[in-house]
């Protein structure tokens, strides 16, 4: 029983991270119908932003809550801006073209971030940028305290990251369903041309969507790196694919679906690696994707919209 509970704790802790990243995929897919391949790499950039900012603020030697908060918020903003820049220069010029062209540039941006970050560092900068291919250790924002609830191990990181993730998701839910921006976002997602005719600034809405999604990815990266401190330029590749699977599982384009999908995927991975062979862990997401595509291609909460001419 304790083992079962422990798996649930671990699964939820990973699942919230998947959910935060999946939200970015699902929102961008909602407004642009584009799989933003670079999203997983924005997540990676978020982790490195946190790494550089903590080193610059001295949070590695003298951790404090204020510094942790500053690092968290600044990384979110930097990544949000990065998302907007990527959209502006790589996706917007191609919006009227075939969807495949935008997909290829998305892959290009993703590779550029992954392999650009693996280049040898530039000496003149004074800090190791680009970080190079060797993994680096993310400084702990605050000291770990382990709780032991009748055999179930739980750290303060798990609690904090769970609460923060849920807080961010609630905030997003509020933005999407209760604000003016959220209304226009849903309008663009429904039909961007008509939304434009109704006086919605489609470009601004798309930029805003990229900002929201990318900053959530940065938040996920810092929450993840806080407890699993090894970060490297390729960390976003597999995680990005998994988060995308979570988004498809929940129904791509659907915000609550992405959250449920992320949690479900986290739990499924944890149970499979806990009760069977742990090296199959990376296969679960793929198997799940195949099953979803076969049985219910619109996902759990998605509605299937036939393609119109």
């Amino acid at each position, binding site marked *: 029983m304790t083992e079962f509970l422990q798996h649930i704790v671990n699964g939820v802790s990973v699942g919230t991270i998947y959910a935060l990243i999946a939200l970015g995929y699902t929102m961008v897919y909602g407004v642009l119908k*584009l*799989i933003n*391949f670079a999203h997983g790499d924005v997540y990676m950039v978020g982790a490195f932003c946190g790494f550089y900012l903590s080193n610059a603020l001295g949070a590695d030697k003298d951790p404090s809550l204020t510094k942790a908060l500053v690092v968290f918020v600044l990384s979110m903003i930097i990544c949000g801006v990065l998302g907007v820049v990527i959209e502006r220069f*790589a996706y917007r*010029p*191609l919006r009227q*073209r*075939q*969807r*495949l*062209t*935008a*997909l*290829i*540039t998305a*892959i*290009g*941006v*993703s*590779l*550029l971030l*992954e*392999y*650009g970050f*693996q*280049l*040898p560092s530039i000496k003149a900068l004074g800090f190791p940028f680009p970080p190079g291919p060797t993994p680096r250790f993310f400084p702990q924002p605050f000291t770990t305290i382990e709780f032991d609830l009748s055999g179930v191990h739980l750290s303060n990181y798990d609690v904090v990251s769970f609460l923060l993730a849920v807080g961010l998701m609630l905030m997003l839910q509020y933005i999407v369903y209760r604000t003016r921006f959220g209304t226009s976002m849903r309008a663009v997602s429904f039909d961007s041309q008509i939304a434009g005719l109704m006086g919605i600034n489609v470009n601004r809405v798309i930029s805003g969507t990229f900002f929201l999604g990318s900053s959530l990815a940065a938040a996920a990266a810092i929450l993840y790196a806080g407890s699993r401190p090894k970060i490297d330029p390729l960390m976003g*590749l*597999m995680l990005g*694919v998994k988060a*995308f*699977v979570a988004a*498809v599982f929940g129904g791509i384009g659907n915000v609550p679906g992405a959250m449920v999908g992320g949690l479900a995927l986290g739990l499924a991975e944890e149970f499979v690696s806990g009760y069977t*062979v742990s*090296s199959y862990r*990376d*296969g679960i*997401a*793929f198997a799940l*994707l*195949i099953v979803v*595509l*076969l049985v219910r*291609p619109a996902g759990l909460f998605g509605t299937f919209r036939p*393609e119109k*001419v």
Partner: protein
Amino acid sequence: MDTSTPSAGPLRTLGLAGRSVTPLAVTFVITLIAYTLLQRAHADYPSIVLTVAGINIIMAVSLNVVNGFTGQFSLGHAGFMAIGAYTAAKIMLGLHHSQIVGLSPFISDQIFFFFALVCGMVTAAVAGLLVGMPSLRLRGDYLAIVTLGFNEIIRVIIENTPFLGQATGLSGLPRITTLVWVYMGVVATVMAARRLAESTHGRALLAIREDEVAAEAMGVDTTGYKVRAFVIASAFAGLAGGLLVHQIQLCTPRSFTFIRSIEVVAMVVLGGMGSVTGSILAALILSVGVEILRSVQEFRMVVYSLLLIVLMLTRPAGIFGTRELWDLLPRPFGRRRASPAGGTP
């Protein structure tokens, strides 16, 4: 179609067979001469570069069937290459000490190798069927993510299977891939791709690329054709895999990573999606370019990624677009015939 072919039964069959056999026979003679000359001159390096370029051509042209003709997007071509490679390698290792009765060891090895390559193609095709069936029912971008995932999963499975040598891979393979084998493979792939493009099947694929909804309305079984194109492409990727591992005499999961898939995608995009000659040219340029730029290896992927972005932003059609080389030649030399892969670039 070809008016010069006599319409009488047996003669026509003979003519059609000739059309298939002649290019292969000509290639066989030419590459055999080139191979012997290179062997005589002890020019190992050019020979290796040419072999690798040939394998890349097979990969690029076969991926073009999916990404170019059909307008889908596969990102896991190296996964199918791995399946073909491991199948062929396992068969060659299993038959290592056997020999067909009454034949010299050399000839018997060549026959075994042919058998191994065909088996590799079959297993890769079956894998293509399994991956393609669920994902090709949906729109093209799902295929991208499924094949990317598939590529990684294949690697994970190989690294955890003792039968396949795990991360160290299978070593001690015979070095049996020669220029002759590779360029016979190239000609077979190119012929298959060109004939596919000119057939009814190919026209259905092009219709799917241009407008899937309209194609479906015209009675094209879109999913069926997409899956078949994907299976054909996977089979040739398997062939390339079998050839590659018997060139480097080592079969490791490291040879079939996501990076290799991306290299092939870059070749197809650079050459022009839908242009077989474009893919050949791009594969040659990039394979030789990598050799020239060996000193700046770490920039290779950055260059590929910039190439993809800049090409899409400035010239999304690639070098040739959907046209073939002869469509661009001046009239006296060029066959001015409406190329089926053509249309508006």
